């Protein structure tokens, strides 16, 4: 036993087999694919992270002010609030405004301002309640001399290393205010919720992913498929109806028609072509007349034939997407994403089968190679739009879009699994029924 194992081991352990010529190129391709997959997940992750981050910042700044009134914040000394009670305007003294800007304050914020020069402060609001603040503001509006000044005093940074500020923002029926710590227009409130309709056209690149669905099908067949199919110009177009709330989040749904075009190129080394040959003979008779006879035959010509077929996959789908918009004056950036439900799928063309024969796969035609489903599974789409307002109703947009349908488009009995991953740039226009809120 041991002897047998020893001998067999000595013969087999370091035995070498001749490498096929194309194995290294397959490995190289595999390495590239892994890199691409990594990049795609990185892209997905980045977009997702950006969305989460944006939503987090947005909603953290948009919390109800009343709920925040008891939340102490420790900020670097930027704002100091002083209220002057008037009669003697000269008593209101500027402390040295850094940005040379004096503002009327709509949100009194103050607490812990003990180190402000007391001779300049006539009345401080310490831990004010909302009714108190309202009262102060109403009286300030009634009397022009009653002003609340915000002054930025650089020296205070020395005097007051930290100021604890509470944010008891006002609740006003007509206007909602919320903390915007960085003063970014991104988080500014829209004027109103709005319905819109948009239309777009998208040139796209469709990347076909193939994998084996049968032990008989190996990398060689998949490579043959990839080599024989090349991308042609593909596109999609669609229309969406949507609604965007005054919180800048919304939803849209519509219809999208997509056409993926491919070129199938295949050299059939043993093609046979039937050619009809008509032979006409002239028979001269003894009396000087002649007769014409004809004979029709079919001749088979064999040889190599190069086939070039235009393949297509056409789909009609319903996208239902959530969206979030960030506004920058006339510009806006919108993140959107969600599922896409296929309602119609039609295809036509040829592919090679595992026996390396070219086969028509056109759906619904008798005798065709039945490998594709009649309806595709749910896909997912992610996009980032840049929107530009051109008038009070219309925005133009450019929208890089990524779409992926994880479920295979081939039937379970097919020897392969096939999915598509699309990227494209949608160009279109959006019309707001109630007026463009960003214009």
């Amino acid at each position, binding site marked *: *036993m041991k*002897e*047998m*194992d020893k*001998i*067999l*081991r000595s*013969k*087999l*352990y*370091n*035995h*070498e*087999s*001749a*490498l*096929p010529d194309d*194995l*290294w190129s*397959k*490995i*190289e391709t*595999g*390495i590239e694919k*892994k890199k691409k997959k990594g990049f795609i997940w990185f892209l997905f992750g980045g977009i997702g992270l950006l969305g989460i981050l944006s939503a987090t910042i947005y909603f953290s700044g948009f919390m109800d002010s009343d709920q925040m009134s008891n939340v102490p914040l420790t900020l670097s000394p930027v704002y100091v609030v002083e209220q002057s009670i008037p009669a003697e305007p000269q008593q209101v003294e500027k402390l040295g405004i850094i940005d040379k800007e004096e503002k009327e304050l709509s949100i009194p914020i103050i607490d812990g301002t003990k180190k402000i020069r007391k001779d300049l402060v006539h009345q401080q609001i310490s831990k004010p309640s909302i009714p108190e603040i309202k009262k102060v503001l109403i009286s300030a509006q009634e009397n022009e001399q009653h002003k609340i000044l915000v002054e930025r005093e650089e020296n205070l940074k020395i005097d007051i290393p930290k100021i604890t500020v509470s944010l008891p923002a006002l609740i006003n029926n007509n206007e909602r205010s919320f903390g915007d710590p960085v003063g970014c227009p991104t988080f500014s409130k829209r004027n109103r919720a709005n319905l819109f309709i948009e239309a777009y056209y998208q040139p796209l690149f469709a990347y076909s992913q193939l994998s084996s669905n049968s*032990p008989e099908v*190996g*990398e*060689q067949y998949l490579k043959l498929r990839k080599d024989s199919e090349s991308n042609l110009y593909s596109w999609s177009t669609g229309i969406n109806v949507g609604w965007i709330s005054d919180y800048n989040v919304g939803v849209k749904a519509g219809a999208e028609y997509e056409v993926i075009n491919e070129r199938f190129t295949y050299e059939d080394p043993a093609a046979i072509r039937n050619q009809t040959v008509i032979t006409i003979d002239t028979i001269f008779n003894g009396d000087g007349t002649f007769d014409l006879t004809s004979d029709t035959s079919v001749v088979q010509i064999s040889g190599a034939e190069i086939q070039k077929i235009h393949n297509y996959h056409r789909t009609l789908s319903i996208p239902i997407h959530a969206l979030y918009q960030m506004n920058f004056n006339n510009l806006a950036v919108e993140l959107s994403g969600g599922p896409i439900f296929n309602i119609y799928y039609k295809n036509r063309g040829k592919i090679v089968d595992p026996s390396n024969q070219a086969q028509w796969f056109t759906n619904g035609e008798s005798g065709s190679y039945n490998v594709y489903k009649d309806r595709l599974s749910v896909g997912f789409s992610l996009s980032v739009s840049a929107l530009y307002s051109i008038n009070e109703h219309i925005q133009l947009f450019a929208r890089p879009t990524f779409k992926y349908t994880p479920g295979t488009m081939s039937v379970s009995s097919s020897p392969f699994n096939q999915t598509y991953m699309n990227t494209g740039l949608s160009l279109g226009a959006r019309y707001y029924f109630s007026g463009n809120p960003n214009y």
Partner: protein
Amino acid sequence: MLTEKEIIDGCKAGKSNAQKALFLKYGPIMLSVCRRYARHQMEAEDFVQDGFIKVFRHIDKFKEESKLGTWIRRIMINNALKHVSKSAFKRESIGIADNYDQDIDAGTYAKLSAEEIMKLVNELPTGYKIVFNLYAIEGYSHKEIAEQLEIGESTSRSQLLKARRMLQEKFIELQKIAV
């Protein structure tokens, strides 16, 4: 010609020439290893392809105190075993007499070429073949095989015994034909 150290460093840096050098150096042995676990040549090539992609992805984890060839071999075998169905290892009772080697002269094995032996081994049922390869050729213990394949140690022993007996029968047949 790159040294092994240069190949490893180059692979860690993602250099294509180092990756190819590593493939050319170890590819032939690994293809032979995978042929012993695969059902056919095409599947063996697929195992090698997947295996080397994993090697290049995880080359950073390779510790240079171990042998590179052994590390790659381990990856290839693990990768190949993932494709083996558990139904190939049906539990069988042990107790087969360990006396099958008595009729064959060890010289008979020695006369056979590696390709001939590989052909005979590959004709074994999947479960027998896998266990025989892991134990007799790769030097795994029954405990390691049991853990690797998630089967009992007794099953591993049983499969090995049956594999040996079947191989022995095949050798006897060959011997008869040769005579």
